[in-house]
């Protein structure tokens, strides 16, 4: 039934090709911006959500009120942790030594060894070093389980290095190499690179430690550079069998109640907290949405009003041949919806293209086009058409055929 009216409306929507094209363009630009923003925020939400999900049960423990590099956890920290009431929920514990000053940007050695050549893309900040227990790290399926070359460290001063260091083309840190590494301008450490581990493909890979060694080695190195002899761990990672950030929080509380007093951080909660940044973004999106609706709606109203004024006689004749007011209104609304949806689809294409290009440049997928965004875009197109066609539709529907026909 309504099919014929739709066909009729489609034919009429493009009577004024330039006007139709301009209003479609106007809507499309607004929608494109919206799509780009929505996708970016959806993508960010997604990454956030995935990370929260991946880390929901993970907590990090350091000495109470102490910087991580100076933090000293007892050697039996793993046993202490397992004394909490919910110990049955603990999936894994891994205590680690953070090796300070292993390789520093300002270090003459780093410069000499070409650790941070300009433009290598390697963040010096990230060149961390850790001492780990192999069996504990294995519980986390940590980096020591991801060797791609060589073997795991067995003797003191044997280390394994991250694949990204090799990829960056360091001349010093090569697989199989033994050399004296100078630390803090003063101490020389005879290291041997026995293996390479995989850090994955994500941009965040450089946040993984660059060097991993035995706890024993790391303690020896730290004791050289720190003003005290280090015997304990800097940090302990605990993985709980937890469904939610909320649940993890209750375990955090149990851990905080332990002696000695500990600083306990829930990674999931931290990351979730980043979501607050999104709130500002959302406000911006809302403002943009309002602008798109008002501007897009106006574009349709103006275009359609022009069309209606020009076509008064046609509406008169349609009414004279029995078209009801509602049928004429429907025709105008359908014409407007056509323009609105087309604008929305073109805008969606533009926005998606924009995102695609940006992603190509970044070499990373950080935005997501969800079907919700597609639905949203269609809904906006529909809404714009409805809103924009309202006034012109009422005008066209209410003309008095006789007055229009007499006016000539």
């Amino acid at each position: 039934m309504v099919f014929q009216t739709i066909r009729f409306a489609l034919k009429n929507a493009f009577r004024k090709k330039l006007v139709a094209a301009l209003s479609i363009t106007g809507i499309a630009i607004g929608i494109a911006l919206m799509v780009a923003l929505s996708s970016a925020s959806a993508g960010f939400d997604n990454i956030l959500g995935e990370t929260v999900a991946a880390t929901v049960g993970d907590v990090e423990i350091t000495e109470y009120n102490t910087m991580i590099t100076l933090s000293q956890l007892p050697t039996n920290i793993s046993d202490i942790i397992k004394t909490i009431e919910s110990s049955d929920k603990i999936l894994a514990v891994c205590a680690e030594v953070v090796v300070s000053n292993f390789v520093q940007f300002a270090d003459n050695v780093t410069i000499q060894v070409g650790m941070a050549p300009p433009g290598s893309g390697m963040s010096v900040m990230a060149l961390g070093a850790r001492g780990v227990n192999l069996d504990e790290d294995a519980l986390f399926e940590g980096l020591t389980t991801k060797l791609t070359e060589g073997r795991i460290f067995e003797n003191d001063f044997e280390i394994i290095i991250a694949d990204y260091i090799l990829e960056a083309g360091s001349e010093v840190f090569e697989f199989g190499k033994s050399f004296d590494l100078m630390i803090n301008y003063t101490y020389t450490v005879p290291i041997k690179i026995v293996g390479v581990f995989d850090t994955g493909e994500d941009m965040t890979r450089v946040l993984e430690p660059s060097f991993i060694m035995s706890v024993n080695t790391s303690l020896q190195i730290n004791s050289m550079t720190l003003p005290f002899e280090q015997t304990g761990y800097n940090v302990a990672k605990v993985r709980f069998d937890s469904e939610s950030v909320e649940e993890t929080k209750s375990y955090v509380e149990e851990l905080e109640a332990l002696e000695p007093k500990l600083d306990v951080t829930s990674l999931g909660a931290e990351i979730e907290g980043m979501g607050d940044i999104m709130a500002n973004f959302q406000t911006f999106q809302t403002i943009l949405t309002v602008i798109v609706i008002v501007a897009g709606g106006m574009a349709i109203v103006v275009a359609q009003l022009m069309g209606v004024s020009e076509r008064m006689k046609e509406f008169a004749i349609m009414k004279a041949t029995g078209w009801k007011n509602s049928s004429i209104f429907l025709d105008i609304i359908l014409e407007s919806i056509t323009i609105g949806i087309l604008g929305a689809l073109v805008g969606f294409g533009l926005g998606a293209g924009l995102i695609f290009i940006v992603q190509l440049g970044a070499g990373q997928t950080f935005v997501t086009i969800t079907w919700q965004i597609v639905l949203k875009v269609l809904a906006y197109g529909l809404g714009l058409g409805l809103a924009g066609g309202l006034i012109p539709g009422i005008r066209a529907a209410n003309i008095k055929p006789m007055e229009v026909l007499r006016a000539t």
Partner: protein
Amino acid sequence: MVDRIHNSEKEELDNSNNFIIKTYGLYKIYNEGEPSMVTALNNVSFGIETGKMIAIAGPSGSGKSSLLNILGCMDSASAGKAILDGVDITSLSERELSEIRKNKIGFIFQEFLLIPTLSALENVLLPLIPDGISKADREKAMNILEQVGLRDRADHKPKELSGGEKQRVTIARALINSPTIIFADEPTGNLDTKTGDEILAILRELNQNTGVTVVVVSHDPLVWEKTDLLLHLIDGQISYA
């Protein structure tokens, strides 16, 4: 060629079912109560027998179009009654009037008002669009186009048609709903004599072949001769010459 109905014959009018149109004391007053007030129809009572072709004549401004518009359910009367096919159209809502326009009335104007984006065939089908168009409707439209001699112009857009052809399309459009009555307000006013004659011949033929009542406003004495009845309007009143 004689007026069938006088005011005094109201009784007969009331009791007759033969009349497709009956009016009783019809008034049309524009801008009532204002200095620019015009009484376009002044107590008009008459009847039109079903199946006739009648002409309405009269000087410019005498109220011909006003009368046609009320009878064609396109405008409301200021006072009086108008019965169309047994229904008092002066008491109907806009929605009901549009139903009658759709189902019972064909309207033809002086201007050849067609939708430029639609072909001749689609223009003929225009009144049916809101309710949907069936295959049978399309065939019917083609047949009507054939009747008015435009079968081979069915796919032409209005800008590809001559004036006379356009007017024939509007006639076809007026016929698509098989109306019981056709109103034509100076249908030949924009055409040369020969083409105008052709248009009138078509209307006459329709009237005779299908029995549709035709009411045509015309200044042309040649037209008057071809009709069954001539109604003269002067200053909004029927004049019985």
